[in-house]
């Protein structure tokens, strides 16, 4: 068939198809192949529609991102380490003397002990215990950036901490040290040798875990809390042992490294402030977290508790509106 004849027949068939909304049939295979294409083009989306929808989705996505990065409780990030100890007043004094911590809030907790909120640099910490609280202590490991690690180390020792490692220059660009306090907590004091004494992306204080089975814990945190392991350092000659990893959860970071030497698993408590405690709790349970207490309404908000296979407990809370 000549091009002209084919062109005319195509035009007639397309015209009929567009008006009848039925696919056109053609006895000629050459014309049939063209009509197959034309038939599919009836479903071609309008570019203006796609652009407008993409713009709407962009706006909605940006709004969701903004909402996700708004602090759920003013001054707090998503994750706050929560240390419990029988001698909470002793810990309170130590943190003030050793690190210049500022007490911002104190109340009696639901278990009859004190609940105290402390601020060090840009980071909030919770400590609890004492009073009639007879529950277990939860010491923890904390990685803290200070302007002058040598001076901070001496100040902490003077306040009663036991030296574990004196300040030492590390090849990863930090000058590090380690101390243990009288309440069982480990403090890794460091000064980053860069534009700022804090590493970019980290707050003043970051919780640090030493699980046996770091890879499995990372996997758990990914499934339970959508953690993003954005930095994982391994030693290939030691079976890819994870020496250090940073995981981002919402606006917070958790550090961890495989248990070794004196750095062993220390079940800790992490307090999550989230926009929807029920949704986060459900997701954690689906991610194989162990249920401890389902979300319920408490004086400080709606809160549920889960645990992982390493004994770490995660309080998942949404504060009452207006806080």
């Amino acid at each position: 068939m000549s091009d002209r004849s084919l062109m005319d027949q195509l035009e007639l068939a397309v015209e009929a198809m567009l008006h009848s909304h039925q696919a056109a049939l053609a006895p000629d295979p050459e014309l049939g192949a063209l009509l197959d294409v034309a038939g599919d083009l009836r479903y071609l989306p309008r570019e203006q529609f796609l652009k407008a929808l993409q713009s709407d989705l962009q706006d909605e996505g940006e709004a969701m991102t903004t909402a996700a990065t708004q602090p759920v409780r003013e001054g707090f990030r998503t994750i706050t380490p929560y240390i419990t100890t029988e001698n909470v007043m002793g810990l309170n004094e130590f943190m003030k003397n050793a690190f210049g911590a500022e007490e911002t809030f104190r109340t009696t907790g639901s278990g009859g002990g004190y609940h105290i909120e402390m601020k060090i640099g840009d980071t909030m910490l919770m400590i609890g215990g004492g009073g009639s609280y007879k529950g277990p202590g939860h010491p923890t490991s904390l990685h803290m950036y200070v302007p002058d690690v040598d001076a901070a180390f001496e100040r902490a020792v003077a306040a009663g901490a036991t030296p574990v490692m004196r300040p030492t220059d590390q090849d990863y660009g930090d000058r590090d040290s380690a101390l243990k306090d009288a309440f069982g907590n480990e403090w890794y004091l460091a000064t980053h040798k860069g534009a700022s004494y804090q590493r970019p992306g980290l707050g003043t204080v970051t919780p640090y875990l030493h699980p046996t089975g770091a890879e499995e814990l990372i996997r758990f945190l990914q499934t339970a809390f959508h953690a993003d392991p954005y930095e994982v350092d391994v030693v290939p000659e030691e079976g890819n042992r994870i020496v250090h990893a940073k995981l981002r959860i919402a606006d917070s970071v958790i550090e961890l490294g495989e248990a070794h030497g004196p750095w062993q698993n220390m079940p800790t408590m992490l307090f999550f402030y989230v926009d929807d405690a029920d949704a986060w709790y459900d997701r954690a349970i689906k991610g194989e977290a162990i249920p401890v207490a389902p979300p319920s309404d408490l004086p400080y908000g709606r809160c549920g508790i889960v645990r992982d296979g390493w004994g770490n407990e995660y309080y998942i809370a949404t504060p009452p509106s207006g806080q």
Partner: protein
Amino acid sequence: MVLAKTNPVQSDDEQRLIEAAQRDPAQFAELFDRHARRVYAFVASRVRNRHEAEDVTSEVFHQALRNLKQYEYRGIPFSAWLFRIAANALAQRGRELAREQGTAIQTEPITDADAERRAMLFQLVGILPEDQQRVIALRYTEQKSLREIADDMQRSEAAVKQLHYRAIENLRKQMEGRQ
């Protein structure tokens, strides 16, 4: 325009895009760009007109964005997840219309493979010469006659007919090379 692969196996690149959008929903736009034509093709043959196709497609992507954190690969490609949302949205719409009007919609449902083929075709339209693209858009999405298109483009009817034929022929050849 980058032509997305239309096979159902999820690439690492796509997986990274999904994870990025799960962390930061503002990055969903790129996933939309990859899948919009595919979903539209899937939806359009199951509804009565373009207006409904746009409504349902819009609903599918808004739902996908809001529920993106619930998506996990586990062998189900992202496109199949979107098709499932689309199928649910269409079923819901069908039930509502049947309740309101007492009749079920008669449509020409297509297979997922047909939707993939149409998605590829729609992407190929984007790489046609500009005047051919314009003729295709006016003819099929605006449903304008040759005369109206000729007036819009300030060309003769014969020239528009020729552009239309060349565009369809180009697309046929391109599709043949990809099937």
